[in-house]
């Protein structure tokens, strides 16, 4: 057994940084918690979606008459039922929300652009009848040539998906439709001089396959509409406010009439940040006047919801013999899937950002191919770029005989440094993270036969943005905390801990809830590792608003000025001069007085959180390869991360461990397999092989806290950084075990076996 440290800093707070009971825990271990597909209402119909069996095809006609005639079928819809929108026009923002594309991705109109693209849907009185009805819909297709690979799709002779898409500012072919939507890039210094200055330069090509978020709960929603234009939606989403806004704009409805409640969510990892079945359920409900539930099957999730982009990357870096990185240059082509929108900006930001490199250039191409449109996946765009950059850096370190941690310490970015896209760093903790790696027993531990050790560092700038919170004081002194962010991995624990800490109230007396879109102001999604940071800040502000109102009540009771009332540990205290003369008032006493002194007390906050700080995560991994089969087993894993401040350390560790294991899957097993006709072959968990419990060891964690001065408790984003460097670290371990560079993910057994044989043959 490996020695496990699970190191965490000691917290001096009462609830922040401590293990507190999980507010939604009991409901989730007893089966009471209600997820998307768990809502049943009287009169409910079941929706099912018909999908294209072709990778690329013109839809010549759709005949729904036989399906409509089936007993129990209440409505059938096609893409013609979704309102059309004009294409988004330049200048394009970093993240484009194009309603033209959104509508066409939800249901094809003239062309099916990937195997699994929705073409029609039915609502029926049972799931079985709805499935039967799909077989009665006749679609006449004209099959077209297709392209799956992003680099091939970017070439001039590739089949073109969209005859109205032109590359935005990349050269001479802009008068010709292209699969390349745009190229984002950045440059600094003098690249030529930088490479001339280097003693060793390495250039390599890396590829990675698309991987799915793999959430265990398929998307599910329930729409109820009424004749007055009202829409009620229950959906499994990472952001019900964003879902509300997208839905109302797409279907041209008034926002306040679209009332969305987030169900419990069975995993998302970025995949539930857009719409899939929701508009279909709404339209079918409008057609039938009845509630409609739409739940995707697992094959539909694989065929038609967004994975992370596959990638093709050419990268070049140079170092001096003393380890100084002199230059870095990278180009990466991302598979956007059928519609533009791969995470190109994040690739550019990520490549070289852990290091101070005077001369660098990075460019990322957003390329459409005949696959499902990509969606966010935990640090979108970063793991593929980091796989390439860290891979080359490890090889450079080996070539100059330098320790992989030392070369990173030598070049580590510090406070005052600036990323390629211009983010200026405040206090950051890369050096502290690297020092923890050096101090950990794993770092110096011996490794056995057929084993290899890998190491990589990841950089991630997490999100801020719009958040809101209401902290409501009940007259018995208990407190409700309402926010607008779905809780995927325990954020309610963190919201509660921060509110309790501020108010000086036991966590058990604080009840956090996820409020619907009508009950608190707009809050952006639970995405970008932003919730504990941004929504947490709103909760703190709202709790402080409650305290100010309670100080005011005490002041009026004591007939002194509000500014003379102090708040400490859940009590209003009189000024020192009046001590002994006035007794402190507890929060409970003040709550009981409130309704007689002007009304119930609640605190509110609506913010646009800024000031987020970069987070760094390092991973150390040992693998063992079976020389007979090429099978790679992960034997030991330690993950080190600067989290700023761990509000709920148990769940911070859970994020680190979960991200690491997703990275193991990305590096070793997970990939989409298409047949010769461009149809996805592995549409289930048996063949899309995610890690299971017997594949992985305990994942040791080292929590590093370099507080972000811009958050009251110092929080940095936690959820995404663990995945950024995980595939790179695992791949590096494999190449060290095999003895040659391994540049094409996933490193599945046949690929590893072939590499072992090549090494043995002296190639």
């Amino acid at each position: 057994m490996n020695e496990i440290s699970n190191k965490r800093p000691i917290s001096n707070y009462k609830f922040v940084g401590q293990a507190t009971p999980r507010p939604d825990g009991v409901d989730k271990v007893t089966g009471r918690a209600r997820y998307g597909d768990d809502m049943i209402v009287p009169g409910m119909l079941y929706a099912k979606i018909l999908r294209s069996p072709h990778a690329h095809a013109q839809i010549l006609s759709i005949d729904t008459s036989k399906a409509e005639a089936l007993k129990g079928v209440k409505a059938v819809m096609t893409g013609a039922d979704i309102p059309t929108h004009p294409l988004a026009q330049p200048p394009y923002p970093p993240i484009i929300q194009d309603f033209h594309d959104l509508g066409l991705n939800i249901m094809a109109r003239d062309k099916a652009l990937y195997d699994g693209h929705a073409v029609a849907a039915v609502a029926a009185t049972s799931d079985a009848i709805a499935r039967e009805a799909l077989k009665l819909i006749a679609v006449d297709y004209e099959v077209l040539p297709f392209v799956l690979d992003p680099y091939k799709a970017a070439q001039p002779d590739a089949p073109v998906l969209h005859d109205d898409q032109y590359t935005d500012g990349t050269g001479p072919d802009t008068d010709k439709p292209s699969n390349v939507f745009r190229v984002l890039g950045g440059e600094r210094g003098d690249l030529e001089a930088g490479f001339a200055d280097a003693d060793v330069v390495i250039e390599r090509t890396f590829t990675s396959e698309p991987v799915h978020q793999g959430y265990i709960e398929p998307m599910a929603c329930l729409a109820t509409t009424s004749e007055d234009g009202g829409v009620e939606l229950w959906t499994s989403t990472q952001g019900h406010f964003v879902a509300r806004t997208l839905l109302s704009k797409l279907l041209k409805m008034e926002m306040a009439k679209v009332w969305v409640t987030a169900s419990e969510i069975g995993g998302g990892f970025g995949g539930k940040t857009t719409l899939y079945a929701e508009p279909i359920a709404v339209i079918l409900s409008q057609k039938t006047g009845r509630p409609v539930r739409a739940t995707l099957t697992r094959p539909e999730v694989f065929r038609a919801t967004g994975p992370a982009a596959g990638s093709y990357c050419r990268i070049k870096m140079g170092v001096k013999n003393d380890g100084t990185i002199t230059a870095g240059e990278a180009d990466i082509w991302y598979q956007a899937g059928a519609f533009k929108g791969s995470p190109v900006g994040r690739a550019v930001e990520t490549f070289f950002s852990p290091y101070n490199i005077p001369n660098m250039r990075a460019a990322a191409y957003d390329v459409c191919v005949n696959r499902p449109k990509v969606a966010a996946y935990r640090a979108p765009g970063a793991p593929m770029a980091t796989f390439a950059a860290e891979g080359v850096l490890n090889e450079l370190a080996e070539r100059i005989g330098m320790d992989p941690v030392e070369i990173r310490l030598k070049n580590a970015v510090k406070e005052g440094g600036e990323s390629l896209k211009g983010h200026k760093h405040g206090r950051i903790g890369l050096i502290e993270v690297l020092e923890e790696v050096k101090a950990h027993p794993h770092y110096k531990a011996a490794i056995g036969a057929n084993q290899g050790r890998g190491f990589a560092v990841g950089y991630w700038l997490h999100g801020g943005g719009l958040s809101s919170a209401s902290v409501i004081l009940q007259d018995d002194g208990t407190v409700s905390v309402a926010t607008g962010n779905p809780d995927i991995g325990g954020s309610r624990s963190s919201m509660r801990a921060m509110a309790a800490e501020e108010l000086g109230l036991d966590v058990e007396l604080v009840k956090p809830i996820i409020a619907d879109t009508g009950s608190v102001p707009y809050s952006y999604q639970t995405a970008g590792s932003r919730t504990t940071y941004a929504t947490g800040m709103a909760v703190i502000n709202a709790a402080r608003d409650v305290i100010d109102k309670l100080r005011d009540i005490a002041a009026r009771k004591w007939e002194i000025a509000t500014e003379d009332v102090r708040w400490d540990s859940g009590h209003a205290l009189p000024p020192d001069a009046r001590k002994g003369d006035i007794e402190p008032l507890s929060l409970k006493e003040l709550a009981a007085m409130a309704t007689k002194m002007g009304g119930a007390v609640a605190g509110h906050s609506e913010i646009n959180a800024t000031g987020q700080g970069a987070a760094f995560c390092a991973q150390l991994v040992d693998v063992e390869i079976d020389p007979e089969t090429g099978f790679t087993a992960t034997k030991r894993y330690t993950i080190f991360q600067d989290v700023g401040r761990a509000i709920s350390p148990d769940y911070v560790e859970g994020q680190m461990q979960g991200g690491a294991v997703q990275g193991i899957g990305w590096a070793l097993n997970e990939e989409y397999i298409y047949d010769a006709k461009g149809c996805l072959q592995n549409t289930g968990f048996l063949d899309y092989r995610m890690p299971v419990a017997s594949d992985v060891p305990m994942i040791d964690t080292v929590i590093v806290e370099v507080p972000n001065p811009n958050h009251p408790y110092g929080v940095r984003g936690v959820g995404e950084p663990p995945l950024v460097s995980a595939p790179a670290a695992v791949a590096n371990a494999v190449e060290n075990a095999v003895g040659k560079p391994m540049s094409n993910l996933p490193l599945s057994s046949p690929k590893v076996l072939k590499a072992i044989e090549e090494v043995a043959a002296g190639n």
Partner: protein
Amino acid sequence: MAKHLITATVNGDEVEYTCRAGETLLDVLRTNLQMTGTKNGCGTGDCGACTVVLNGRPVNSCLVLGAEVEGAEIETIEGMATGGELHPLQQKFLDHAALQCGVCTPGFLNMAKALLEANPDPTETEVRFGLAGNLCRCTGYDKIVRAVLDAAAEMRANA
């Protein structure tokens, strides 16, 4: 399509339902009986989210037909806590933060319960292989394995 009238015992209560030949035990639990604690993650027996205990054995309820459980005893997540008390496994899952999104949790709990009944003192490796048919995408399994080992120790101490 012909319907079957079935009588079975779910969490100690006799239930009666009609179902078509093609409907699975998972469909019956979630739709006919409106017991939604059992989750549908894949429908093909690959993820374990729908694990229930059928006549003492853990099964993927998506691979069992509703029509073939006549007279059977079925235990689901809704019956795990008794008399207002959580089962030791449920409590240890909470104590060890062994769930994040929680959708795989009912399946893991049922599988772990059956595992500990067959082997009250498993090694870490035995727990990992015993739970290898249940997918969790959030936790990386570390805290789940710890929770099951800790629950096993507590259950042995109280046996």
